């Protein structure tokens, strides 16, 4: 433990019986209290801003950034096509793994020991494996099982060559979803466990059918804690989709990689383009997240938190009124 040392107040500053002359209790009590100032914060902020500006300056003074080429590449058909693939693969995997996550989470929470063990095993397996391993494994499925089919065991079977129905995109989405479901199942499970036991009991006591208990009472409340964690997962998924490059799918990152080897002199602007697009995607998701969270917060607080716009307005109004207060003082 370190000893807490504080500078002593000047003598009498904390005593009412030794007020300076000309000041009475009434006057003292009627003035606004001066908030504690934090001068060190300003010093640190100034240092940080100077450092950031220094770094920022190099963005413009260092010609190697080649900003002029960024707009050209930014909307180039190849990049947009890669972006489309990233969006498509992420969107499908996000939806599949959300639904799948609910199913696996319910499996783990089920009273049926076979179901809960199977779900646990699934989560254990796919959380253990690196996504890239899963993807490359799937990609080689054609070697492992050249054809797939169903039928009567040891009897007649229907068979299709694996390659014909498992295109790289389908394989990629399956790979992303398989591993994502394992994580989202845990996210969903934690959300369900966070719902008060009394809610389950009230739903039971009202005789609500089990499906309705879950969909109407438990899940909407669980979503409050599921949404932030799940959006995290989706953002991770966007970035994880860059691994599709290794199974010969040209997503945003893959396009940048291959363009970079075709146009080695443009590698920096291409990386900037990829950076900007990933930033844009994540920002868009964060905005959507904010409003989804607001929706599921209804009823959980007496008043909903302000939207960012309302917050900015309030802060400005606050600054204005303090400024007015200072000039009055």
């Amino acid at each position, binding site marked *: 433990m370190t000893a807490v040392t504080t500078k002593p107040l000047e003598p009498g500053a904390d005593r009412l019986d030794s007020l300076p002359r000309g000041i009475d209790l009434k006057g003292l009590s009627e003035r606004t209290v001066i908030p504690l100032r934090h001068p060190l914060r300003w010093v640190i902020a100034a240092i940080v801003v100077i450092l950031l500006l220094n770094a920022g300056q190099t963005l413009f003074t260092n010609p190697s950034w080649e900003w002029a080429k960024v707009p050209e590449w930014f909307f180039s058909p190849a990049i947009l096509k890669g972006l489309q693939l990233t969006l498509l693969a992420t969107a499908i995997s996000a939806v599949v793994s959300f639904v799948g996550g609910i199913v696996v989470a319910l499996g783990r929470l089920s009273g049926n020991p076979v179901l809960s063990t199977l779900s646990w095993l699934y989560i254990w397996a796919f959380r253990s494996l690196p996504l890239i391993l899963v993807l490359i494994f799937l990609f080689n499925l054609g070697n492992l099982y050249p054809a797939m089919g169903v039928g009567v065991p040891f009897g007649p079977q229907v068979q299709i060559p694996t390659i014909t129905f498992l295109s790289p995109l389908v394989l990629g989405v399956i790979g992303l979803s398989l591993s994502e479901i394992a994580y989202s199942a845990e996210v969903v499970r934690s959300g369900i466990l966070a719902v*008060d036991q*009394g*809610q389950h*009991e*009230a*739903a*039971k*006591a*009202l*005789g*609500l*059918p*089990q499906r*309705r208990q879950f969909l*109407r*009472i438990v899940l*909407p*409340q669980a979503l409050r804690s599921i949404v932030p964690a799940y959006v995290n997962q989706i953002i991770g998924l966007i970035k994880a989709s860059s691994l599709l490059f290794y199974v010969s799918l040209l997503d945003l990152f893959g396009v940048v990689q291959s363009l970079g080897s075709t146009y080695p002199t443009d590698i920096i602007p291409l990386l900037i383009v990829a950076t900007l697009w990933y930033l844009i995607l994540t920002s868009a998701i964060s905005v959507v997240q904010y409003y989804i969270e607001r929706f*599921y917060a*209804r*009823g*959980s*607080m*007496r008043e909903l938190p302000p939207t960012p716009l309302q917050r900015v307005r309030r802060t400005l109004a606050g600054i204005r009124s303090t400024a007015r207060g200072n000039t009055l003082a």
Partner: protein
Amino acid sequence: MTAAIDIHNATKSYGDKTVLRGVDLTVAAGTVTVILGPSGSGKSTLLRAINHLEKLDEGFVALNGELIGVRVKGDRLKELPEKRILRQRARIGFVFQNFNLFPHLTILENVTEAPIAQGISAKRARDEARTLLARVGLADKEAAYPRQLSGGQQQRVAIARALALEPEVILFDEPTSALDPELVGEVLGVIRTLTGSGKTLIVVTHEIGFAREVADHVVFMDEGAIVEQGTPSDVLSHPRHRRTQDFLSKVLA
């Protein structure tokens, strides 16, 4: 008088801890029964066993002669599938100590939820819910969310929610224990209006005054068993058992 609720040999333990030791209780239809007892006496467990929120190890509960949560199989009782139990529960209202309103639904939606699930049209459910909310004095709160209401108002909504299924029996599990003292009266007032309406009420409570005023039958429980029961004046004014006397002197002190 016919019996609305018949409890026979209700026995329950959690691990080595026995919470109900073969409780027998008959509740006449249309009457008000108040169950008193120190905490841990098993009174809440008994109440929850009536609508099968709590499964009994031995014994059974019958509502108007119909077994709840179990059926006869040979010479034993066998648990019913959850689906059938849920249908039986809809005939028994339950009011919780902590209200357990659905926080993400409006007051009106809280009350209409169960009737709509039962297949009643949304419009009819809403009309009836509004009548019920007016009856508990909350007609103007239908669009609010539970957390925007005081504890007393929430409990009144919970009572309206229980009434919406037109249950034959309503069970109250310490309905005023989570309330600030000044809000207890409004909830007891609503419960009072339900007496004599033909519904059978069973109330677990610590409100001795309320028991004296509205109860037809008072049951005192301790350590998982019924110690004594009778009219309010028997049990509350002339308790015969030492444990009842001790409890009453503590509660009334």
